[in-house]
């Protein structure tokens, strides 16, 4: 089965995109696109918000179609800025919306547990939360400024850092989330099984999936574009 023919186009109505895949709602949310846009097409809405329509479509396609392989060739230097803006917005969405919701659910869930399990889960999650935050901070304090200086032609920054290090440092923050999921599904005792646990798992699955797409945007769009830019500077 190939999804290659079933991708979104600029002439599609944004409301139709959402009808295809409701997970795209969160993309609109983090791009600060306000609802009530009527029959606007992708091209129209992107122009109105000053977003590159090509990039917007690529992100939507990455979210909706697993087999979709973005063609980076159609993007240029100007899109790099748009991608880092999107990734920053995405970080805000995780730290401001997704993780607080998970934290809240965990907090309510552990209140039903025995003291030992409560301590364990609390500590596990707090450590994970710190790790994710420092991962995001590393990107915002080191990686994105490096990319921006590269775009501003500040050659002196060269040699100090290269995007390949980012690839190297790009630890898989999904691993612990997956562990937490399995602990809740398989290893917390049955006596505590409650609707809260299901709710929490749903939230974890959804942020896990979102983070996977987030990494794809970094690995398949951002890194190749920056590598191209680095070559120009050599």
């Amino acid at each position, binding site marked *: 089965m190939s999804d290659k023919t079933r991708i979104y186009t600029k002439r599609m109505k944004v409301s139709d995109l959402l009808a295809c895949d409701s997970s795209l709602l969160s993309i609109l949310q983090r791009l600060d696109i306000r609802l009530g846009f009527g029959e606007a097409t992708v091209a129209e809405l992107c122009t109105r918000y000053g977003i590159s329509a090509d990039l917007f479509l690529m992100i939507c396609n990455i979210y909706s179609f*697993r087999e979709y392989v973005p063609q980076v060739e159609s993007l240029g230097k100007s899109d790099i800025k748009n991608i880092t803006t999107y990734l920053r917005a995405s970080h805000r969405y995780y730290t401001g919306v997704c993780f607080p919701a998970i934290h809240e659910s965990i907090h309510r869930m552990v209140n039903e547990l025995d003291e030992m399990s409560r301590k*364990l889960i609390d500590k596990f999650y707090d450590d994970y939360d710190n790790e994710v935050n420092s991962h995001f901070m590393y990107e915002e304090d080191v990686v994105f400024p490096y990319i921006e200086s590269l775009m501003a032609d500040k050659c002196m920054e060269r040699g100090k850092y290269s995007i390949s290090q980012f690839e190297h440092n790009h630890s898989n923050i999904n691993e612990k989330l997956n*562990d937490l999921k399995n*602990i809740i599904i*398989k*290893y917390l005792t049955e006596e505590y099984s409650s609707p809260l646990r299901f709710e929490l798992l749903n939230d974890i699955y959804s942020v896990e999936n979102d983070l996977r797409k987030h990494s794809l945007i970094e690995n398949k769009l951002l890194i190749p574009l920056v590598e191209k830019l680095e070559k120009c500077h050599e």
Partner: protein
Amino acid sequence: MNREGKYKVVLIEPSEIVASGISAIIGKNPEFTIVQTLADPSYYNSNDNADVIIVNPAVIDFNERFDMRSYFGGSEAAIVALTHSNYEESVLRQYDECIGIYDNASRIIQKIRNAIEECIQNPRSDINELSARERDILKAVAKGMTNKEIADEFNISIYTVISHRRNISQKLGINSIPGLTVYAIMNKLVDMSDFG
């Protein structure tokens, strides 16, 4: 297997010509159904529960080539190489079977069947329970010991420790050390007081 009792096949091959050809050959056979065709293995989703993964070894990063099973998230699927050129013996040993680009249709189907058969007869490990040895290793991991320390303590090689740890993670579905620690404490393999 899917609901109709067909084996689920994931195909990872960057050449669209080759991918279409293999899909056509497999598609004609009622035993199999191709659930996913990918050009790039990083899009592979281990939740798909494929029965067979057919992959061109050229798409796997060189340093990952020697541990295909964990590359695919500890998948239980039969992993079949689809080769356009020659590979070192040590690379191909990672696969349950190897399809060559000049194999004919019946040979290809036969090789996929062999690979599935091979996987059923020799499961990687008992998938449910941790062995006594694995429990000991898990305790050591939870206490924060490094692979080197564990190897010294149990008088085994580091490679054996790594292989035990891989099997433990596969069985439990827990990969990180903190996650393994939580599991070990909850199951009373180690005591919380060990951690202060």
